[in-house]
């Protein structure tokens, strides 16, 4: 380092140690611990060490539908958010001109309102006496307030999409910024319609950002247990809720750990699928 050469992680690997220690101690360690625990058993509320696949068998046997539901709603929320985020980022990039900085700051401004504040805001909007229902009833469009607006999967989707949108806009805007405008002009010049130019000259170059945005939204959704409880109603149970109850009320940490690992595996599979699908669809012919 004293020779003035730029830092190199290869040569000055010791610089990585603090960060590596934090990651190892607070993330990798606990994760490995729960991986081991997921093969343990519980007997009379006590954890019994051993190697037992019973927890996994139980999750597959009894929790298949909630896992599928969690993956499905996660896929829906992440897809909708990513598509909306791309549209917003693209608009800011192409039409924002000198206001692009302000528009971007405005999207980030929503992050100042915390997660729970947003949930409560949506409850106010969607509730039985909420603004939406009052308006609909007042206008005579429906005779009685629609109960299903709140305490339903629809509410979960609305809340999470609105919450996640800024997180998804950021990586996409960054990716768009690195694209030279003249490559789009070139596509148009060579005969591409405006839509074809986006498909051929813009989207393929956003694949890493699209996957990042999707994964971010998907993982937050797949691990969420607050939103479904607050606005999802009693019938919208996601894996997060089941895992939480195993770690909490039911005191069955091994089963909770097995649920966690199966959810993680399924999540990785969904993200890998989306990544491959995007790469295949957007590959230049």
């Amino acid at each position: 380092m004293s020779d003035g050469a730029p830092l190199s992680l290869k040569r000055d690997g010791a610089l990585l140690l603090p960060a590596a220690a934090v990651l190892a101690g607070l993330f990798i360690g606990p994760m490995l611990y729960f991986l081991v625990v997921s093969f343990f058993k519980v007997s009379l509320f006590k954890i019994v060490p051993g190697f037992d696949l019973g927890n996994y068998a139980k999750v597959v046997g009894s929790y298949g539908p909630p896992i599928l539901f969690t993956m499905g709603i996660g896929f829906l929320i992440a897809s909708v958010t990513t598509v909306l985020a791309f549209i917003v980022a693209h608009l800011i990039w192409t039409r924002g001109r000198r206001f692009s900085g302000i528009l971007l700051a405005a999207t980030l401004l929503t992050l100042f309102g915390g997660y729970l504040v947003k949930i409560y805001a949506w409850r106010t909007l969607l509730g039985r006496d909420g603004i939406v229902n009052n308006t609909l009833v007042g206008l005579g469009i429906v005779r009685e307030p629609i109960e299903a607006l709140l305490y339903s999967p629809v509410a979960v989707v609305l809340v999470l999409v609105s919450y996640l949108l800024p997180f998804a806009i950021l990586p996409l805007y960054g990716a768009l910024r690195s694209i030279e405008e003249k490559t789009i002009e070139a596509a148009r010049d060579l005969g591409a319609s405006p839509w074809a130019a986006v498909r051929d000259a813009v989207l393929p170059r956003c694949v890493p950002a699209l996957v990042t945005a999707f994964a971010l939204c998907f993982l937050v959704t797949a691990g969420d247990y607050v939103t479904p409880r607050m606005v999802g109603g009693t019938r919208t149970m996601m894996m997060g809720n089941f895992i939480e109850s195993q770690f909490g009320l039911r005191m069955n940490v091994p089963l909770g750990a097995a649920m966690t690992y199966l959810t993680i595996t399924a999540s990785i599979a969904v993200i890998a699928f989306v990544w491959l699908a995007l790469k295949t669809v957007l590959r230049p012919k």
Partner: protein
Amino acid sequence: MNAEPLVRLQGLAKSYGIYRAVHPLDLDFHEGDFLAILGPSGCGKTTLLKMLGGFVEPSEGAILIGGRDVTRLPPEKRPTNMVFQGYGLFPHMTIRQNVGYGLRIAGTPRAEVDARVRDMLALVQMEAFADKLPPQLSGGQQQRIALARALIMRPKVLLLDEPFAALDLKLRQAMQEELRRLHAEIGGTFVFVTHDQAEAMLLATKVVVMSRGKVEQVGTPEEIYLRPKTHFVSTFVGEANFLKACRRLARVSIEGAFAFDDAGPDGDVLVGVRPEKVRLGAAAARCDHRFSGTVTQRIFLGAQVQYTVRLQNGETFIACLQEGDLLPGDSIDVGWMSADQWVVTP
């Protein structure tokens, strides 16, 4: 050449708010023309080219290509193709995919796309790079690919935006030669934008000189250089000596020297002469116009010797000669032929 022009611009203009980037202009050019739009940066030349390509919407006027009004057509519907400044290649596509893109978009059968891409890569001598990605290529190689990608569409008009600006001198000369060869080989109508007058002279059959959004002069390189119509053109396309003169009743006279006929409005004018057309010493004796003067500076330029001469009326003249052993302080006759002079308003 007197046939119907291929491209006709009628009163074409572009304004941004109150700022006129391009003043209304009329311009015709024909099939086979190699047209240079020449001017300093900010003169509106690129805006004009982008209007031709469909990337900038004109504020006024019309663009006709082959008799068809294309003024409001988007780029993809125009019979033009562009080589962009900085090339604008698709970085995620191979060279083959880049060159074939336009044909694929048009729904050309696979076999034909492949064959035409192969031919086009051979034409620009880039066959060996077909499966590379643009970032792996040098500037000159990317330039060839950008050319191939546009030419494969067989455009009625090929537009080139400062095509050689990013290349170093040697490579630029090679690419200029290449472009000339391509134009000779495949024909077609090329329009390129440049701020380099030497490049315009070298390549173009017709030069449009622009300044501050206005067309100053349109003509062959010879006309532009030897018969500039404005003061700006005189100095932009080469070095020029000027003598203050006055025109009255279609006769231009330089006080205490000579006079000649030249039609035009009355008023102050400048008589221009190129330095290499100026004769010194004995050679000046046979010239139509003569002054006496004193050499004030001699600069050896290799192929030429450049003299600065102070004329008897106090004005300074530059003369470029093939050889000469005059020294500062020498008294000398300065002369030039009528055919080598031109008159512009200051």
